[in-house]
């Protein structure tokens, strides 16, 4: 855990550095008339310093948080997390192309899938139901415009 905390501190420092770097071309202005880069740059520097302070403090301090990185994820199906995120990413990228109905259906199938062999058929049908019903509810009751993609009827 301590190692992870240090890594998080370094990550923050990196973030701050990237921000400051990205701001390098913008006018800084004067304290009387601050430019676009004035505040973000100051904040970036502040963040960098704080993150540095934090990293050093954690590295030198005793391991108050005794659980190691391993226990943080012990016994958990942590792989589900990146898979879910990947599914969301895929959903976002295909949404406009394929439309809400198709994408939602596929997404729901993916989520319902792991119920076991018997229920796969139910998973597919259930997903379709969810997709269609939600579309109808949101479209007619709340007028949310969900992309039709290919199914333009």
């Amino acid at each position: 855990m301590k190692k992870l905390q240090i890594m998080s501190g370094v990550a923050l420092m990196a973030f701050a550095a990237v921000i400051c770097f990205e701001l390098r071309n913008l006018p800084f202005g004067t304290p009387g008339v601050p430019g676009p880069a004035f505040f973000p740059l100051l904040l970036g520097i502040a963040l960098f310093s704080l993150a540095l302070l934090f990293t050093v403090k954690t590295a030198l301090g005793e391991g108050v948080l005794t659980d190691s990185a391993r226990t943080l994820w012990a016994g958990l199906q942590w792989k589900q997390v990146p898979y879910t995120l990947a599914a969301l990413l895929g959903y976002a990228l295909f949404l406009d192309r394929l439309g809400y109905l198709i994408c939602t259906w596929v997404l729901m199938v993916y989520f319902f899938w792991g119920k076991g062999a018997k229920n796969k058929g139910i998973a597919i049908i259930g997903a379709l139901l969810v997709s269609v019903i939600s579309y109808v509810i949101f479209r007619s009751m709340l007028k949310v415009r969900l992309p039709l993609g290919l199914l333009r009827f």
Partner: protein
Amino acid sequence: MRARGFFKGLLIFGMVMTLAMAGSWAHSAEKEYPNREIEIVVPFSAGGMVDLAVRVIADELAKNLGVPTVIVTKAGAGGTIGAQYVSQAKPDGYTLLLGPHSLYCIEPALQPNLPYKTTDLVPVARFVNYPFVLAVRKAAPWKTFEELIAYAKKTPGKMSYASSGVGSGSHVIVEMLKVEAGLDIQHIPYKGGPGQLVAVLGGHSDFLYCGLPAVLPELRSGDLRPLVAAEKIPEFPKIPTVAEKGYPGSALASWAAFSVPKGTPKAVIDKIANAVEKAVKVPKLAAKLQDIGGSVQFVAKEELGQEIERDIKRMTEFIKKAKLI
């Protein structure tokens, strides 16, 4: 087990996608335009002047074109986000942009790196005109335009005015006045129409010079005192125009215009323009537009395109001269 689930999901995605792509090739009806609903993109947040105008006209347009019209809000970045979206949409006439003058004529002059070219959007028609009016709050000491100018000349740099944002009409028009009259007044940009209104009502800025709809209620109630306007306003005939006061150059139009992505067939553009023209001839519609502070003015296609080009040039020159960038 989990990994299998993941890959299965990916496989399904892939299969469906391939099927879908194949299907989309077969799909394509060249039925006559329009045969399904038309999307009107409003690049400003709901409730603003552009939004109001479009809601007034959307129904009429739907009637004239025979298909439903849907209003889509894509706000942000002075309207350029919505404009970019439309510029990249399919040029089939089902995606229209309704934008204000500032988006078509000022943004291109102000922003060096727009994500689209002005030629990517083809203007179709403009239908409503908002006069610009300069006003101070009720308790302000200036009763006439001359008094304001005189005070500004006496106190260079001390006065301030509120605009609804950098690059908006309410910003540029005051800068034009400053150049013409030789004034030094501090510009303070606020967030949108309400922001600038609150600033002036609360006394945090001295005056504003903006489109009529944003200040109509206050003008009618007397909380704001109009000193001068860019053109004659029928409801307030007593307000002098800047031309009368000797500053004809600081006049700016503010209108709302439809445009489509480049490459839209001429027949489609004609149909839309005709629908708009028919719509504004309806007396009830004209009355509604007047209610919110606008007046009907119809200019279309090539004429509008030339108007926009001229204005972009004018704005570019002015912005360079006034060193606004």
